[in-house]
């Protein structure tokens, strides 16, 4: 090869290189200077200029109005601050308050570990952070000038604004490569918030379960019983995150993710009914009734299921499962412990599903293990709910406020989801009777406003119940939420089911799968993936709808803010402050959920299709 040839080749390759870089990088748009940007975007012609001026004026007026509302000396913000505990947990007994912190701490511990395992957070460019801070600082400065502040307050806010603008200026020119994790930013923000508890006089805190409030802190400080636990909570969350990132490399990740997800589902039940409700177990009753029932069902059920999951069981198995189902329904005709009825029905369900999961020994043993685990959880849960609580609380439920909002939301989601899937399957089933029942149910529920269903359940249903069965109002209302949401989720899932092509059904049938196996292994996984985005929307809507609890007189977050606190002698008529606070909390949580859901959608959509 001669040299001329090689040089020409070099030229050729360098040419093609520049070509490639030209093709792949989008042409750089020259950054507009601020005045150019204004001209291009806001004042491009007369009409746009007028619109810009008018809307700016409107925005400024609204901000000014809001600020003069918030910072009006007449506002009783101390009503919200002082009653923070009431808002969050209603009158949970003070000497047992540590239970709340333990529960919260456990959830934060789970959060920390999960964030680490799912590698949450993305990297944000420092220059972007700088821009955001600049905007925030500028907004604070503007707001300070607009707000009717006292001189001292104006100076303090101006200093804060300038400080933030300063940091923004420092960060803005940083290089594109310099990034920071969004988790770091978030925990930084939390750290600042918690530090501020130690420094800033938010108001003096008292505990208002009785008529004479007990002062917990000197005026102008935050009570130690608030700031210390929160600081510990922060440390717990941080430590568990680092613990999570430390152990995630060392253990089987898929498996531990499955364990984590299961813990997320089960732990709220434990926290609510074991830690928070603190049931006063009666050893005698436990030994004479509860434990024998548990042992009976676990042992008899295991033996039965081990037999029913044999591959060669055939028709006999179906007959026996149907018989158990029949017995399960028959128990409602006789005087009997509720737990026996429920467990019999659950056993019938497991027996009916047995042929789907039958197989060799390991598969059968696995199925039996699932049965025993369900028994442990169900027996323990039902027993705990039936045991009187040691947490003596006015009203007929052991907790209220934001906690009950979250609790009802949790139960709704966890139970409405499987019910919705069942309804959707029934609605698309071959059997007309299932289709008719499910369609009628769904259309009926969707045709009635939620508030009607809630009132119906809280007022009427307890009257209809047979003797010997009673339902607390909270349980009745939760059931109302569950059936309402299930009807809507069913429609979302049905959309997903319809998106599964006929070819998928045929392929599953052609390899000899039964209908149940086809549904469980092939159709549902694909349908649910499609249904995730609409379902998340539905979940967010549900969370907001929990506000309706206030209307039927349950001591939820909104009810305490709207009716309880404004009734206290010191805080007569502080409704507006509290409502503003409640809206802010709802806003933040819904916003966070929708952001999180967008990322989940992205992740689920990737790769596999």
């Amino acid at each position: 090869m001669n040299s001329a040839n090689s040089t020409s080749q070099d030229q050729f390759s360098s040419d093609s290189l520049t070509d490639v870089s030209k093709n792949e990088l989008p042409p750089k748009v020259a950054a507009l200077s601020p005045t150019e940007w204004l001209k291009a975007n806001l004042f491009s012609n007369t009409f746009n200029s007028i619109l810009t001026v008018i809307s700016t004026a409107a925005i400024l007026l609204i901000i000014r109005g809001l600020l003069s509302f918030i910072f009006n000396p007449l506002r009783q913000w101390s009503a919200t601050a002082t009653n923070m505990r009431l808002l969050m947990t209603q009158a949970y007994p003070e000497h047992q308050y540590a239970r709340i912190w333990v529960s919260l701490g456990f959830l934060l511990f789970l959060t920390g570990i999960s964030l680490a395992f799912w590698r949450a957070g993305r990297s944000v460019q420092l220059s972007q952070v700088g821009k955001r801070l600049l905007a925030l600082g500028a907004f604070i400065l503007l707001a300070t000038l607009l707000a009717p502040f006292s001189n001292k307050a104006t100076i303090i806010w101006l200093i804060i604004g300038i400080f933030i603008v300063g940091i923004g200026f420092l960060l803005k020119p940083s290089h594109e490569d310099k990034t920071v994790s969004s988790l770091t930013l978030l925990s930084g923000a939390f750290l600042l918030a918690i530090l501020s508890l130690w420094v800033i006089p938010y108001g003096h805190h008292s505990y208002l379960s009785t008529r004479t409030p007990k002062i917990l802190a000197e005026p102008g400080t935050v009570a130690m019983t608030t700031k210390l636990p929160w600081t510990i909570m922060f440390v717990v969350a941080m430590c568990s995150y680092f613990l999570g990132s430390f152990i995630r490399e060392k253990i089987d990740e898929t498996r531990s993710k499955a364990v984590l997800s299961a813990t997320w589902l089960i732990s709220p039940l434990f926290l609510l009914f074991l830690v928070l409700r603190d049931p006063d177990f009666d050893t005698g009753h436990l030994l004479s009734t509860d434990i024998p029932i548990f042992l009976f069902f676990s042992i008899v059920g295991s033996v039965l299921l081990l037999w029913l999951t044999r591959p060669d069981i055939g028709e006999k198995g179906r007959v026996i499962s149907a018989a158990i189902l029949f017995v399960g329904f028959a128990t409602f005709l006789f005087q009997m412990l509720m737990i026996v009825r429920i467990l019999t029905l659950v056993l019938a369900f497991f027996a009916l599903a047995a042929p789907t999961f039958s197989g060799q020994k390991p598969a059968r043993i696995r199925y039996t293990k699932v049965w025993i685990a369900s028994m442990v959880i169900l027996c323990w849960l039902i027993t705990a709910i039936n045991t009187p609580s040691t947490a003596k609380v006015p009203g007929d439920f052991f907790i209220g406020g934001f906690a009950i909002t979250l609790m009802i939301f949790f139960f709704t989601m966890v139970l409405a989801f499987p019910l919705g899937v069942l309804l959707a399957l029934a609605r698309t089933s071959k059997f007309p009777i299932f289709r008719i029942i499910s369609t009628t149910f769904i259309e009926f529920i969707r045709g009635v406003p939620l508030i009607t269903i809630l009132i119906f359940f809280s007022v009427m249903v307890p009257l209809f119940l047979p003797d010997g069965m009673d339902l607390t109002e909270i349980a009745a209302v939760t059931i109302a939420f569950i059936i309402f949401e299930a009807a809507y989720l069913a429609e979302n899932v049905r959309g997903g089911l319809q998106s599964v092509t006929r070819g998928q059904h045929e392929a599953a049938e052609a390899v000899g799968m039964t209908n149940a196996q086809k549904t469980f292994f092939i159709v549902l996984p694909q349908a649910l993936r499609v249904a995730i985005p609409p379902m998340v929307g539905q979940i967010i809507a549900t969370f907001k709808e929990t506000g309706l609890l206030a209307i039927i007189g349950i001591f939820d977050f909104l009810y305490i803010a709207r009716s309880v606190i404004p009734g206290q002698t010191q805080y007569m008529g502080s409704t507006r402050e509290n409502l503003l606070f409640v809206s802010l909390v709802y806003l933040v949580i819904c916003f966070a959920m929708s952001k999180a859901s967008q990322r989940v959608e992205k992740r689920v959509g990737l790769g596999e299709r």
Partner: protein
Amino acid sequence: MTDNETKSSVRGDRDLANAQDIIVCEGVSKWFGDFQALNNVSATIKEQEVVVVLGPSGSGKSTWIRCINRLEQHQEGRIMVDGVELSNDLRNIEKVRSEVGMVFQMFNLFPHLTVRDNISLAPIWVRKKPRAEAEEQASSLLERVGIPEQADKFPGQLSGGQQQRVAIARALAMEPKIMLFDEPTSALDPEMIKEVLDVMKELALSGMTMMVVTHEMGFAKEVADKIMFMEGGQIVETGTPEHFFTNPTEERTKLFLSQIL
């Protein structure tokens, strides 16, 4: 060894004359609403036989082949598969389906499962095999269809030819006695057709009973023991490839061949 020699030698091994009948159709008819898609179809397929079904579009080839594992239900006549008559009895259907493998035109792999899970799912839950054994079998089947390295990918990450080979492996994992193919190469780019046909040839040589709907005349000439020509829901002509391609008796067959060759 040329393909022809292979075929004749294998043919020599197979004693088709004395083989058992494995699929028997007697007067099978089927209507979609008022439209008759199958009209009195009668045919017998013997064990280890390779039958290619030809015919113009809309002639009822797919309908017939899908009746044999009851993805469609026939309304008149009888279909016996390996001694079991197809009726509304669910147990018969499941029994027949686990003995008849089917490969579709559009592959129909399960998009949410890896290739390995696609293949081992049915053996585990339908045949009740231990998972380890099923996965081992999946690996050896992937080896057999020539893509052992793709086991952990998802179907969406494979080429069409690879997907169809996975689909064949998935059907084979049930250890079927009969394989049905409904235009297995029609959705493939030309360069991928050969890799799928090669797998099918290998399968035919190994003694699998096969019923193949295809437009690949080369495959039909080379591999088929018998060719059935359908039109208007009827079997118009049946014969060996030599007879069929060189010396067809029916006018309609001649017309079809003149259009296609």
